[in-house]
């Protein structure tokens, strides 16, 4: 069982490990709703995913694997957790009230042969 500490609240922008959150005004075209009980905002090859509970949150994905969006539906905020038992990233709280939109950016790395996503 992972013991959760209280989440760190971001007002506008902040990171959890290799995932970055930024409050924005709208969701660009080309992003569609993804359904599920829980959304994995960033997968890790080691299973240490960054996840958000889907209740009260609408999750959008598009063709860009480095971007996604979260929209608060009927909640004031949502918490993002890191599924790792030790050396984990503190949970973060994304607020703004119903309707608020948070952009999710996944960290990338330069590769002379083409960029690739970095993952912890």
């Amino acid at each position, binding site marked *: 069982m992972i013991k959760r500490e209280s989440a760190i609240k*971001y007002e506008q922008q*902040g*990171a959890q490990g290799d995932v*970055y959150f930024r409050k924005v005004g709208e969701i660009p075209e080309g992003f569609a709703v993804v359904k599920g009980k829980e959304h994995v905002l960033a997968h890790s090859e080691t299973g240490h995913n960054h996840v958000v509970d889907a209740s009260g949150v609408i999750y959008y994905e598009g063709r860009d694997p480095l971007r996604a969006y979260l929209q608060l539906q009927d909640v004031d905020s949502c918490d993002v957790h890191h599924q790792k038992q030790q050396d984990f990233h503190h949970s973060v709280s994304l607020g703004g009230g119903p309707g608020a939109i948070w952009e999710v950016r996944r960290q*990338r790395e*330069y590769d002379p042969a083409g960029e690739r996503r*970095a993952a*912890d």
Partner: protein
Amino acid sequence: MIESLTGKQIGAFPKYVREWTAIGLCTDSADRPRAERAVRKMYRCAGIKAPTRIVWCGSPLALVRRQPEYPCDPVDTLVSLVGMKIADRPVAKVWDCCFGQHDAGWLAYYAFMRTELGLKKQTDSLAGLTALAKCAGWALPYENTCYVSERHNVLHRDNQGRLHALDSAAVQYPDGWGVYAVRGTRVPKEWVMNRATLDPRIALTESNMDLRSAAALLIGWEKVLAQLSPKVIDSEMGMATSHGYCQGELLDIDLPGEPHQRFLRVLWGREQQAVLRVPPNMTKAREANAWTLGFEGDSLKEFKPEGRT
């Protein structure tokens, strides 16, 4: 039909977790007489004539390297008896095995159902596999011969239960075969056994991030960077709060055939370090950090992190 479990039944979960975890992780030598009885029981449970020969092997690798005969596959029969689908089972020989102690993960459920829910008849067919799990490693059953492996005799894990050893195999069998792993990531044997001479560039250039992280742990970040003589271009390591945003250090490193490559040393999580490669035209740690998150050009001014956890 059982619709729900009682409090007493739920309360028995930890006992099964403890017992079957211990079975799966056991490093004792196989109890060969018991195991051979278990093998015969396994065949009987599947309605198949017991094998005339039981051959012991020093590891699962030795077992799957044995000459094939006609498989009678009691596992398939047993699995179908308990109603599980196996249609997608690979043909590979390793999947013709039953995994002895390593079947503990699923046999535990049936042991619970048998004992705590009284489902005796429904689980009778697993008696052989259950008995084998408690006294030996893998088994490869054929019509007349069953090959059985010893249990692993070495098992190292980290404090999260992941396979982990920096100076030896994380799992090893009596015949010497083993698996090398760092924090749950399987690594080449040479990385561990030749750790002192492992090329530090692996920790910066290996394409798989888990392997890169494992290499860094084996070598040590300080050694990785020291051996490559990085030049610090820009440093912004300070944090205003415990959850402040550390921009990190921008490093200039000469790789073979690639002079003046730029890397960003960042702090991820609680003192967890990582080094990410960034474009060679980066001049500031903040700029490099922003680039890794897609902020570049005009959008760079929008990069205003409040913190990083």
